[in-house]
């Protein structure tokens, strides 16, 4: 080792990290904003990112489900309306047929007499 390296070695020896004063960590932690509710940032992120994903998926499901239900309701109402119209049409047809039948019978009776 030459003199220069010797001196550099001494510097490294003499500049090893010092110990912090006792209670340093506690004093830092006490100064953190909102210490009692402080959360681990990485854990918080680890929690919130999947949580946000699930919440978004749930919201999309609700919106999609709601649209589907609304569509089904419209279809059901339209179907019921069509069914009612069909029944009405059938009733009218039956009534008309009865009328025609009575007229035919009446005219047949008249011819016979």
């Amino acid at each position, binding site marked *: *080792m030459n*003199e*220069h390296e*010797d*001196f*550099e*070695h*001494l*510097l*490294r*020896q*003499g*500049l*090893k*990290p*010092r*110990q*912090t*004063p006792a209670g*340093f*960590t506690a*004093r*830092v*932690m006490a*100064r*953190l*904003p909102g*210490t*009692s509710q*402080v*959360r*681990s*940032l*990485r*854990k918080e992120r680890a929690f919130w990112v999947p949580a946000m994903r699930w919440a978004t998926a749930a919201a999309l499901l609700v919106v999609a489900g709601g649209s589907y239900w609304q569509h089904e309701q419209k279809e059901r109402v339209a179907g019921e309306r069509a069914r009612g119209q069909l029944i009405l049409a059938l009733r009218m047809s039956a009534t008309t047929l009865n009328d025609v039948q009575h007229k035919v019978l009446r005219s047949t009776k008249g011819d016979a007499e």
Partner: protein
Amino acid sequence: MPGITGEFREIVEAHQSRVYSIAYRVLGDRGTAEEVAQDVFLELYRAFDAIASDEHLAAWLRRVTVHRATDALRRRPRTLHGAAEFEDWMAETPKGDGPFPLASEIERLVLALPPAQRAVVLLRYQEDLRPGEIAETLAMPLATVKSHLQRALKLMRARAEDTLKEYTRHE
């Protein structure tokens, strides 16, 4: 303290010695060094989302600590120029509470350097950074870092001839 704060506590525990040592060796005063070190960790807490890796964390802590300690030092500047002034300063400065006598002597030699040289020497010999890394940490041209290092070593060796004679003899 809730267990959930454990991660930040672990970071403080893992890096406090490095941060405090830099602050102390820039400032030469335990009380101010602790204040600066605490402030650095509070700043880290606020900037934590921007820290991408352990290496980034270590580099961030070094850079911010040097800057905050240097800012604190500017509020009470003291730069020694002549040999006589240094002798007076060494005589009046307490030997400190380093882990062993050599550490105290080395710390006193570092503390007697101009602030820019002091920061470069600490990053080189305490943090074991290469000159290029020091230039990056201090946002300083590489040539300036090398020049500071050379001047600091020359100055410290000249001053250490008496104070460190016994240690060099034993090496």
